[in-house]
């Protein structure tokens, strides 16, 4: 029991357990997103000011694509169907909006700080 109570050993054990759970969760998340044909950042809360600013800074084509993806996902859920597998890798980067949100947030905080 002493080698179990050792702090470093416990830490690595917990870390490994956490990693296993993390990988399982991400795998499940990615398959779900792929089945609905979504990117992760499509699901961000739309009423947040920074998200609104960031979305308005996307190019018109990117904005249209985002809305189309969301519509397709709603359609899939309604019909209990999935997006076919050959389209799963073609949606694009999952976190494409996050840098824009960060920048918008920085600018807003700078203005409010004054």
């Amino acid at each position: 029991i002493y080698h179990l109570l050792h702090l470093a050993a416990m830490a690595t054990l917990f870390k490994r357990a956490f990693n296993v759970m993390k990988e399982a969760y991400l795998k499940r998340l990615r398959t779900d997103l792929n089945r609905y044909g979504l990117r992760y950042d499509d699901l961000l809360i739309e009423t947040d000011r920074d998200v609104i600013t960031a979305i308005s800074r996307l190019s018109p084509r990117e904005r249209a694509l985002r809305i189309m993806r969301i519509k397709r996902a709603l359609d899939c859920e309604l019909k209990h169907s999935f997006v076919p597998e050959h389209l799963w890798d073609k949606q694009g980067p999952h976190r494409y909006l996050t840098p824009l949100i960060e920048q918008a947030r920085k600018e807003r905080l700078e203005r409010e700080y004054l």
Partner: protein
Amino acid sequence: TKKMLFRAALNPAKRNARQFGSLLNMFQNSKMPRVPLDEVLVEAPANAATAVVTADAPAITTLPSGLRVVTVDDKNAVSFVGVFVSCGQRFEDETTMGSSLVLERLALGPTENHTALAMNRAVAGLGSHVMTSTSRELMTYSAEVLRNDISPMLEILGEAVSNPKLNTWDIDAAKSMLIEQCEGREGFIDEAVVSDYCHAAAYVNTPLSLPTAPSKPVIESITTEGVQSFFNKHYTAPNIVVSVVGGNHDEVVESVEKYFGTIGGEKVTPIQAKYQAGDVRNFGMQGDGMAHVALSFESVNWTDDSLAAASVLQMMMGGGGSFSAGGPGKGMYTRLYEQVLNQYGFVQAATCSQAIYSDTGLFTLYGTSFPQYANQLVAILVEQANKMAGPVNATELARAKNLLKSYIMTHLESRMWLNDDMGRAVQAYNHVKSCSELCAQVDAVTAKDVQALAQKLLSSKLSVAAIGDVSGLPQRDEVARQITA
């Protein structure tokens, strides 16, 4: 309070004595010095008002990257900093049309290291504001700061000029502002509009004909890639001149190396300008119900020998609006006033203006009148143009030269104009001419020089620009036939 009033009422003698006593004692016990008004108080220093501080000659340094720095130290506590980029409407083409105005708007926009807010606040923190101006060949960013703040201001301008972040949303905001300005300008005709038309007529289909105030379709067609490529091509080190009035040269060069050091690139030579005499008319424009007519000729460029003669000629022709109140220095004795505006009541304005570029120039005689007299106006302008090549009165010449010299000297006294002059001179010649040099050049102009120049002007083909209610005007060829040179 009640007690005090009671006591004051009961002691009137004491109160009066106090007041009376102070009156009597005012002159005896006064501690103020007695100043006799007919004796000299303090010896004034001799020649205080006439002491002249001679400024040093401007010092020019070219950095290894090609960037030029020019400074002159006038030992003043306030300085003026300017950055001059050889870039403008002249360098645009179909894909980049309108980019210079957008770049001017985004002067203090976000850069790689700072947000727009940070830039604007920094400038305001220095107590100044950045003035931008765009012309066909030159874009300038300038600001007036205290001497100690030259380095921070150079940092701000360096950031703005070396790595601005040209975001699509900022460019869209700039575009909508430009469209608003464009709509506000509708129907408004002034000298800038006429100058745009003159350039369009004189340099048909070459880059110099692009207007400084673009129309709505042009503004709507501005793209981010266009602006970015325009910026990358023209904001290069050999195209930029940093000019400072009132700073130590070595310190300024050090700051410039630090803040403008990341700029590289090569010099861009403009497309050779081709003067093609043309005719541009805008019939349908409502405007102000007047007829605006401008006759233009090809003139000298910055490096021409007869630049001084051209300036003297322009001063001699002079002109202005007919509602001018006059006054010294306004040019009331110039030819366009004496022979045109004073003689013919229907002429609302008659001006002579000149636009000078690095390889060409445009000399314009512009007149405004009621529409029914437009043909007479053209005849009058043609008559004046022909007279330019004729003999020049000695008084007229002397007047024009004095006027020109007084303008030069008055302008060079102001920090802002001095900075502007230094920047433009270094861009054009790599060398700054002092006030006395310029005045000597003006003095050296003779009547014969002016006449020869006028004949050269008239021998280049005429271009006509007409705006407003101008339906009955003769064609360009007919007007050109009347020019006898």
